[in-house]
């Protein structure tokens, strides 16, 4: 691929683009990314999947300037993250996988305010933004709790609030729910969805069910961008899933085993209904 992908929202410039980007870690025989090209239009919600070691984390680090590509061009709101990391980080917030690494302050509200303090935001404005961000992740009442006393899932919501408080227009989510239980995951996903379409989102995950209504899904494997597909097409491509070490969630997998369409049956309720409907029509014929 020579050009960034077209994206689902034509027109306007890319919020994020990679053109033929390659990167190798020092001392490693094979590149972590080779010749990767894609673009995110403002307001798009794009998923990134692929096996461990496929290049997902490397891509995230290139986008906020932690790493510089060996060749090719990375642009975030028109800027080079490796050259202008601080400028770029005002526009692009990253939620990392392990929240323990990111929490620094004695109380939850201070932690959420940390990024704003670094940006020199006025006190009253900061209060409002912090309160709004804490509400956005459902942690009202936790303002004076110590992050150390929180469970992993709660910590992750604090970390998310800290990023939302600085109001970046682009969010990169690096496996944001891997530490959450089912209820916590659903809640965070609901808030992430509420950000559409104001924010441009790149969502790295192993959980395909989180991407069923994404605009597109990118597949990284062995440093190559293997596919850039709609969820509908991708989830029904059994070979593509297997080759990329992906496994369908239980409900669509049961559906597939029963000869029912897997992409439209995501919840136990939907599957149970389809089974009963099928059994009824079966007895009639």
């Amino acid at each position, binding site marked *: 691929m020579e050009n960034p992908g077209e994206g689902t929202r034509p027109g306007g410039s890319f919020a994020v683009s990679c053109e033929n980007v390659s990167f190798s870690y020092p001392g*490693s025989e094979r590149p972590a990314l080779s010749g990767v090209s894609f673009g995110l239009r403002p307001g798009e919600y794009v998923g990134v999947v692929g*096996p461990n070691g496929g290049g997902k984390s490397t891509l995230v680090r290139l986008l906020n300037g932690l790493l510089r590509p060996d060749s090719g061009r990375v642009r975030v709101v028109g800027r080079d993250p490796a050259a202008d990391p601080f400028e770029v980080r005002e526009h692009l917030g990253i939620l990392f996988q*392990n929240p323990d690494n990111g929490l620094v302050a004695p109380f939850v509200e201070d932690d959420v305010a940390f990024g704003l303090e670094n940006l020199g935001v006025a006190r009253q404005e900061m209060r409002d933004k912090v309160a709004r961000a804490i509400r956005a992740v459902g942690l009202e009442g936790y303002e004076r709790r110590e992050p150390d006393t929180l*469970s992993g899932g709660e910590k992750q919501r604090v970390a998310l609030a800290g990023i939302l408080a600085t109001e970046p227009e682009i969010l990169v989510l690096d496996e944001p729910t891997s530490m959450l239980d089912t209820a916590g995951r659903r809640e965070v996903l609901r808030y992430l969805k509420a950000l559409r379409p104001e924010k441009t989102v790149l969502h790295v995950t192993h959980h395909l069910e989180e991407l069923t209504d994404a605009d597109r899904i990118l597949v990284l494997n062995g440093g190559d961008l293997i596919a850039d597909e709609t969820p509908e097409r991708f989830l029904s491509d059994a070979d593509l899933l297997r080759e990329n*070490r992906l496994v369908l969630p239980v*409900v669509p997998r049961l559906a597939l085993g*029963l*000869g029912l369409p897997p992409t439209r049956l995501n919840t136990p309720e939907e599957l149970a209904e389809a*089974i009963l409907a099928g059994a009824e029509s079966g007895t009639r014929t």
Partner: protein
Amino acid sequence: MELELKDVSHIYAPGTPFEVEALRGVSLVVEPGEVLGIVGGTGSGKSTLVKQMNLLLTPTSGEVLVDGLDARSLKKSELRRRVGLVFQFPESALFASTVEEDVAFAPRQLALHEEEVRERVRESLRVLGAEELATRSPFALSGGERRRTAIAGVLAMKPEVLILDEPRAGLDPATRQELLALILGLREAGISVVLVSHDLDEVAEVADRVCALHEGRVRAVGTPAEVFYRDPAHAPATVRVASLLKGSRPGIGAPVRFKETLETLRALRGV
């Protein structure tokens, strides 16, 4: 080894305004050679519970018994060798220059012959399918490879009970399925496995028994079918589907694992 918790409570920061009662009167037995799943929502006390099992945290009240003996009467090093604990994100503790050196670190503290240490390292890496990583740097590995290296380090201590606290968080789905196979392999080898997970679908596939925690108390303990069918709202997807069909298809039984559920549903549909 039989590991028993008797009426264990744990309070963080007691006597301060931030006091949190994380466990309240938990009694639970880990039977020899079983896979025990510990499930529960965020903050239900799962991680606090397993840290009592090798006294990494001391119960505020209650007892931990190893084959009927008070765990406090054992040397801590001995207890922690026999009850191995793999933390959430264990790879953050990797430090040596090669994978084999990292895995060898703990067994080398046991005053074993160097040959025995080498043998244990080889065997642990083999069990985890990570032999080819032996001479690589832990820092040049992918997430799944690092996780396996960290688990190998605990396995090399030859624990009798292996506790895995969310061992598969952040791993790709295929690697996660491989780890499930590994857990079943450890049980074959006679090691008890305590699997802490918020992913009920995965617990359903490997657990012999399940303990469900809620707000620091044991909400239910029993076979996966007993625990999950009692409360289908907190059950794996397989159980939720079967429960929804039970009203109109009472003969559906109580399938839990994916394969038996699929077979049951196929029979129902006459496929």
